[in-house]
Protein backbone atom coordinates (compact mmCIF):
# COMPACT_ATOMS: atom_id res chain seq x y z
CA UNK A 1 0.00 0.00 0.00
CA UNK A 2 1.36 3.35 -0.94
CA UNK A 3 0.70 6.27 1.26
CA UNK A 4 0.84 9.76 -0.05
CA UNK A 5 1.93 12.46 2.27
CA UNK A 6 2.59 16.11 1.89
CA UNK A 7 6.28 16.72 1.92
CA UNK A 8 5.99 20.36 2.79
CA UNK A 9 3.24 22.45 4.23
CA UNK A 10 2.06 24.93 1.68
CA UNK A 11 0.14 28.13 2.07
CA UNK A 12 -3.57 27.97 1.70
CA UNK A 13 -4.90 28.60 -1.75
CA UNK A 14 -7.28 31.08 -0.30
CA UNK A 15 -6.63 33.30 2.66
CA UNK A 16 -9.16 34.43 5.18
CA UNK A 17 -10.21 38.04 5.08
CA UNK A 18 -7.97 40.39 7.12
CA UNK A 19 -5.19 37.82 7.09
CA UNK A 20 -3.95 38.37 3.59
CA UNK A 21 -1.78 41.36 4.12
CA UNK A 22 0.18 42.23 7.23
CA UNK A 23 -1.39 45.02 9.11
CA UNK A 24 0.91 47.92 9.51
CA UNK A 25 0.97 49.67 12.82
CA UNK A 26 1.19 53.35 12.49
CA UNK A 27 3.89 53.98 15.03
CA UNK A 28 3.80 57.70 14.47
CA UNK A 29 0.29 57.76 15.87
CA UNK A 30 0.71 55.10 18.59
CA UNK A 31 3.95 56.27 20.19
CA UNK A 32 2.75 59.63 21.55
CA UNK A 33 -0.32 57.89 22.99
CA UNK A 34 1.85 55.29 24.70
CA UNK A 35 4.10 57.98 26.10
CA UNK A 36 1.10 59.88 27.43
CA UNK A 37 -0.35 56.73 29.02
CA UNK A 38 2.88 55.83 30.75
CA UNK A 39 3.31 59.37 32.01
CA UNK A 40 -0.17 59.46 33.57
CA UNK A 41 0.15 55.96 35.03
CA UNK A 42 3.60 56.66 36.38
CA UNK A 43 2.23 58.27 39.50
CA UNK A 44 0.10 55.25 40.37
CA UNK A 45 2.77 52.60 40.60
CA UNK A 46 5.26 52.97 43.40
CA UNK A 47 8.00 50.43 43.59
CA UNK A 48 10.23 50.82 46.60
CA UNK A 49 13.29 48.65 47.03
CA UNK A 50 13.43 46.81 50.38
CA UNK A 51 16.10 48.16 52.69
CA UNK A 52 17.20 44.65 53.63
CA UNK A 53 18.65 42.27 51.06
CA UNK A 54 16.33 39.46 50.05
CA UNK A 55 17.75 36.21 51.35
CA UNK A 56 16.26 33.01 50.10
CA UNK A 57 17.15 30.39 52.65
CA UNK A 58 17.47 27.44 50.32
CA UNK A 59 19.82 25.76 52.72
CA UNK A 60 17.07 25.17 55.27
CA UNK A 61 14.74 23.59 52.70
CA UNK A 62 17.39 21.37 51.25
CA UNK A 63 18.39 20.16 54.67
CA UNK A 64 14.83 19.30 55.60
CA UNK A 65 14.33 17.41 52.34
CA UNK A 66 17.54 15.49 53.03
CA UNK A 67 16.51 14.70 56.60
CA UNK A 68 13.18 13.33 55.45
CA UNK A 69 14.92 11.16 52.90
CA UNK A 70 17.39 9.83 55.47
CA UNK A 71 14.89 9.21 58.26
CA UNK A 72 14.19 5.56 57.45
CA UNK A 73 17.87 4.74 57.01
CA UNK A 74 18.85 6.48 60.26
CA UNK A 75 16.06 4.64 62.04
CA UNK A 76 17.49 1.30 60.88
CA UNK A 77 21.01 2.35 61.78
CA UNK A 78 19.91 3.11 65.34
CA UNK A 79 18.05 -0.20 65.59
CA UNK A 80 21.10 -2.12 64.44
CA UNK A 81 23.44 -0.33 66.84
CA UNK A 82 21.48 -0.29 70.06
CA UNK A 83 24.61 -0.45 72.19
CA UNK A 84 25.65 3.09 71.26
CA UNK A 85 22.20 4.70 71.12
Amino acid at each position, binding site marked *: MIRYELTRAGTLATTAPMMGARRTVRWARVLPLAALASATLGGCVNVTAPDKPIVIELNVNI*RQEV*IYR*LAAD*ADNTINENEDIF
Partner: protein
Amino acid sequence: MNRVSKMIAVAGLAVAVLATPAMAQRDPAYEAARASGQVGEKMDGYLGVVGGASSDLQRLVSDINIKRRALYSQRAQAAKPAVTLEEYALTAGCIAISRTQPGEKYQAPDGSWQTRTSAPPMRDSRCPAAQ
Protein backbone atom coordinates in the same frame (compact mmCIF):
# COMPACT_ATOMS: atom_id res chain seq x y z
CA MET B 1 5.17 -34.53 65.69
CA ASN B 2 7.85 -36.73 64.25
CA ARG B 3 11.47 -36.77 65.29
CA VAL B 4 12.71 -34.61 62.40
CA SER B 5 10.32 -31.75 63.06
CA LYS B 6 11.18 -31.94 66.78
CA MET B 7 14.86 -31.61 65.95
CA ILE B 8 14.15 -28.64 63.70
CA ALA B 9 12.15 -26.98 66.46
CA VAL B 10 14.94 -27.53 68.98
CA ALA B 11 17.52 -26.22 66.55
CA GLY B 12 15.38 -23.14 65.89
CA LEU B 13 15.03 -22.49 69.62
CA ALA B 14 18.78 -22.88 70.11
CA VAL B 15 19.48 -20.36 67.33
CA ALA B 16 17.02 -17.89 68.86
CA VAL B 17 18.59 -18.26 72.31
CA LEU B 18 22.12 -17.94 70.98
CA ALA B 19 21.26 -14.99 68.72
CA THR B 20 19.80 -12.87 71.51
CA PRO B 21 23.02 -12.23 73.47
CA ALA B 22 24.77 -11.47 70.16
CA MET B 23 22.53 -8.42 69.69
CA ALA B 24 24.49 -5.65 71.33
CA GLN B 25 22.90 -4.03 74.34
CA ARG B 26 23.84 -0.86 76.12
CA ASP B 27 26.69 -0.99 78.56
CA PRO B 28 25.20 -0.99 82.12
CA ALA B 29 27.15 2.17 83.02
CA TYR B 30 25.75 3.92 79.94
CA GLU B 31 22.23 2.71 80.69
CA ALA B 32 22.53 3.99 84.27
CA ALA B 33 23.90 7.38 83.14
CA ARG B 34 20.98 7.79 80.74
CA ALA B 35 18.38 6.80 83.31
CA SER B 36 19.82 9.18 85.92
CA GLY B 37 19.97 12.06 83.44
CA GLN B 38 23.76 12.46 83.60
CA VAL B 39 23.95 12.11 79.84
CA GLY B 40 21.45 13.21 77.21
CA GLU B 41 20.77 13.10 73.50
CA LYS B 42 21.93 16.22 71.67
CA MET B 43 20.31 17.68 68.56
CA ASP B 44 23.41 17.07 66.49
CA GLY B 45 23.14 13.29 66.88
CA TYR B 46 25.71 12.87 69.62
CA LEU B 47 25.60 12.18 73.31
CA GLY B 48 26.18 15.05 75.72
CA VAL B 49 27.12 15.26 79.37
CA VAL B 50 24.54 17.11 81.46
CA GLY B 51 26.21 19.12 84.18
CA GLY B 52 29.53 18.11 85.66
CA ALA B 53 30.99 14.82 84.57
CA SER B 54 33.46 12.45 86.14
CA SER B 55 36.36 11.48 83.93
CA ASP B 56 34.90 7.98 83.63
CA LEU B 57 31.60 9.32 82.37
CA GLN B 58 33.35 11.72 80.01
CA ARG B 59 35.34 8.81 78.59
CA LEU B 60 32.20 6.73 78.16
CA VAL B 61 30.46 9.55 76.29
CA SER B 62 33.49 10.25 74.07
CA ASP B 63 33.82 6.57 73.27
CA ILE B 64 30.18 6.29 72.20
CA ASN B 65 30.38 9.50 70.18
CA ILE B 66 33.44 8.30 68.28
CA LYS B 67 31.58 5.12 67.38
CA ARG B 68 28.50 7.11 66.39
CA ARG B 69 30.55 9.43 64.23
CA ALA B 70 32.15 6.51 62.38
CA LEU B 71 28.71 5.03 61.80
CA TYR B 72 27.23 8.32 60.56
CA SER B 73 30.17 8.83 58.22
CA GLN B 74 29.78 5.36 56.76
CA ARG B 75 26.01 5.65 56.30
CA ALA B 76 26.20 9.21 54.91
CA GLN B 77 28.56 8.04 52.18
CA ALA B 78 26.45 4.96 51.46
CA ALA B 79 23.32 7.10 50.96
CA LYS B 80 22.31 7.69 47.35
CA PRO B 81 22.99 10.46 46.63
CA ALA B 82 25.60 10.75 49.36
CA VAL B 83 24.90 13.27 52.10
CA THR B 84 27.17 15.06 54.53
CA LEU B 85 28.13 13.60 57.87
CA GLU B 86 26.34 16.49 59.61
CA GLU B 87 23.11 15.90 57.70
CA TYR B 88 23.10 12.25 58.64
CA ALA B 89 24.02 13.00 62.24
CA LEU B 90 21.22 15.59 62.55
CA THR B 91 18.70 13.06 61.20
CA ALA B 92 19.89 10.45 63.68
CA GLY B 93 19.66 13.10 66.42
CA CYS B 94 16.00 13.75 65.56
CA ILE B 95 15.24 10.06 65.88
CA ALA B 96 17.38 9.47 68.96
CA ILE B 97 15.62 12.36 70.74
CA SER B 98 12.19 11.06 69.80
CA ARG B 99 13.17 7.66 71.21
CA THR B 100 14.24 8.94 74.61
CA GLN B 101 12.32 7.47 77.52
CA PRO B 102 10.55 9.57 80.17
CA GLY B 103 13.16 10.72 82.70
CA GLU B 104 16.02 10.78 80.20
CA LYS B 105 17.61 14.04 79.08
CA TYR B 106 17.58 15.57 75.63
CA GLN B 107 18.62 18.86 74.12
CA ALA B 108 15.83 21.22 72.99
CA PRO B 109 16.20 23.40 69.86
CA ASP B 110 17.24 26.36 72.08
CA GLY B 111 20.18 24.30 73.35
CA SER B 112 18.82 23.74 76.85
CA TRP B 113 18.67 20.31 78.48
CA GLN B 114 15.17 19.01 78.96
CA THR B 115 13.86 15.98 80.80
CA ARG B 116 11.72 13.80 78.61
CA THR B 117 8.17 13.40 79.78
CA SER B 118 5.43 11.30 78.26
CA ALA B 119 4.74 14.26 75.92
CA PRO B 120 6.58 14.41 72.58
CA PRO B 121 10.03 16.02 72.90
CA MET B 122 10.77 19.53 71.61
CA ARG B 123 12.69 18.93 68.41
CA ASP B 124 14.23 20.87 65.56
CA SER B 125 11.60 22.07 63.09
CA ARG B 126 13.37 20.16 60.35
CA CYS B 127 12.95 16.83 62.10
CA PRO B 128 10.64 14.36 60.39
CA ALA B 129 7.42 13.45 62.15
CA ALA B 130 7.95 10.82 64.83
CA GLN B 131 7.13 7.30 63.70
